[in-house]
């Protein structure tokens, strides 16, 4: 009988880390890592920042060296997305016609950018940013254009806006909600980012919708039309309005799907042989019990290790603390925890200095720390929250002279 085999579908951060973690945790069966793209796994965060700014080619983005898969006896299948899953037969079919049998299957399918569903949304020069290919396309297009319209004030949109503005483009951001990064940060942090972008010359329009895009005779975008009639000239449009989890393969195989492949606290689907992790998975938040889907490097990397541990015979519920980061105009925002549902914010430090943290509380409980250029606050929050150690109360945090470093010392954790 063949050694137990694991097939990992999706070669992004989550999939690649799963394969790597299986080997480093001692798994000695067959591992097959299946990717839809033609390149080995790469880092995504630089795509909207350093890569877009022109620094470094694709090779610098590689998550692991070229020799990695061969050295660890991992079969890496490129440019061959999975198209059908037969759970009864424990086989997955790839686009090429090849089928792979498995003992365990890990779905790390990721997410795809949401399209802008307006007239003209398919014109040339209307781009999204998720993959290296898309990033290359955007980078090339930015060289030939002067006016960029960014639709969406989330992480991707704001990072691209900042990179493009720093490169000298005229940049307009149109966000349909009343504030920037609304799903990820507090209102006060949204306001700070808004001021930062405007100070750098980005035109930001809030609570405004793009109604249509208009092109020239050759089918290339030239202008956006907002609901209400205002027109914005643009030679390039970056659509950053969120992403849709890739769930078709799971749904087609009868697995439960609800804006993500549904998994339990061990990241397992309803089929004990099938796990789902990373951007495509919706798992119970260990802190609230509510279903949660996260798109982040941290979540992908930690879920990969969690699944690998389970497949190596050491299952443990997924409990990693979420954290995120973004960089815009040299401003480094780091978020530890999830602030959703906070009812008050305590400011530590002085926002006017460009170095401060916003502590998001629900009652007495610290839910998240949002740090701008104060990495110690971020790191100490992560460490204390992750360990379940005491955290500063709102009163402690609001006291003059409060500092996380001193707090951690006195807390002796």
């Amino acid at each position, binding site marked *: 009988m063949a050694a137990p085999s694991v097939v990992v579908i999706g070669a992004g951060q989550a999939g690649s880390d799963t394969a790597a973690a299986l080997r*480093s945790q001692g798994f000695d069966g067959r591992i097959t890592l299946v990717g839809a793209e033609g390149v080995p796994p790469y*880092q995504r*965060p*630089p795509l909207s920042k350093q890569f877009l700014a022109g620094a470094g080619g694709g090779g610098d983005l590689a998550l*692991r*060296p070229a*020799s*990695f898969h061969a*050295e*660890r006896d991992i079969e890496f299948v490129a440019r061959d997305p999975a198209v059908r899953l037969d759970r009864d037969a424990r086989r997955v079919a790839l686009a090429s016609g090849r089928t792979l049998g498995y003992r365990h299957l890990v779905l790390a399918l990721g997410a795809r950018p949401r399209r802008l569903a307006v007239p003209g949304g398919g014109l040339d020069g209307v781009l999204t940013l998720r993959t290296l290919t898309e990033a290359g396309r955007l980078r090339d297009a930015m060289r030939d254009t002067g006016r960029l319209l960014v639709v969406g004030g989330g992480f991707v949109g704001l990072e691209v806006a900042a990179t493009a503005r720093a490169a000298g483009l005229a940049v307009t951001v149109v966000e349909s909600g009343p504030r920037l990064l609304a799903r990820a940060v507090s209102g006060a942090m949204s306001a700070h980012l808004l001021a930062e972008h405007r100070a750098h010359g980005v035109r930001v329009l809030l609570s405004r919708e793009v109604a249509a895009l208009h092109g020239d005779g050759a089918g290339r975008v030239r202008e956006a039309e907002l609901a209400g009639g205002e027109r914005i000239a643009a030679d390039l449009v970056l659509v950053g309005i969120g992403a849709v989890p890739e769930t078709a393969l799971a749904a087609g195989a009868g697995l439960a799907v609800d804006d993500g492949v549904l998994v339990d606290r061990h990241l397992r689907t309803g089929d004990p042989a099938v796990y789902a992790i990373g951007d495509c998975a919706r798992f119970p938040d260990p802190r609230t019990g509510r279903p949660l889907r996260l798109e982040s*490097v*941290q979540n992908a*990397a*930690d879920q990969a290790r969690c699944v690998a541990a389970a497949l190596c015979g050491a299952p443990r519920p997924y409990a*990693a603390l979420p*954290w995120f*980061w973004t*960089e815009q105009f040299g401003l*480094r925002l*780091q978020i530890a925890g999830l602030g959703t549902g906070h009812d008050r914010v305590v400011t530590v430090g002085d926002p006017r200095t460009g170095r401060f943290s916003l502590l998001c509380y629900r009652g007495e409980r610290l839910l998240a720390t949002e740090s701008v*250029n*104060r*990495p*110690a606050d*971020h*790191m*100490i*929050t*992560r*460490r204390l929250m992750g360990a379940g150690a005491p955290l500063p109360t709102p009163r402690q945090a609001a006291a003059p002279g409060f500092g*996380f*470093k001193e707090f*951690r010392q006195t807390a002796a954790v």
Partner: protein
Amino acid sequence: MAKITYRHPNGTETVVDVPVPNTVMRGAKINNIDGIEAQCGGSAQCGTCHVYVDEANTLPLPAMHESEDDVLYGTAAPRRATSRLSCQLPVSEEIDGLVVHLPETQS
């Protein structure tokens, strides 16, 4: 090119030649050395490329920037006097022979 030694928590070590320019973090990544995660890719954000520089080291390492110092407040393994973020240690001929110890855990 500089020779860098990565000593694992179990006492074994991996010695590799790392091309210049690179960082001690990248030196581990491009040589498939387990024990360095570098989740943030080397931008001093995440604290998962933590190393302990060998105590006997006399090679010229760059002074610690404030943000590196800040990140080291939250590493998963205990911070020591010899703690550094390996993404902030550039590899040059001058640090040929550097020995770093990998911590028990990075996250």
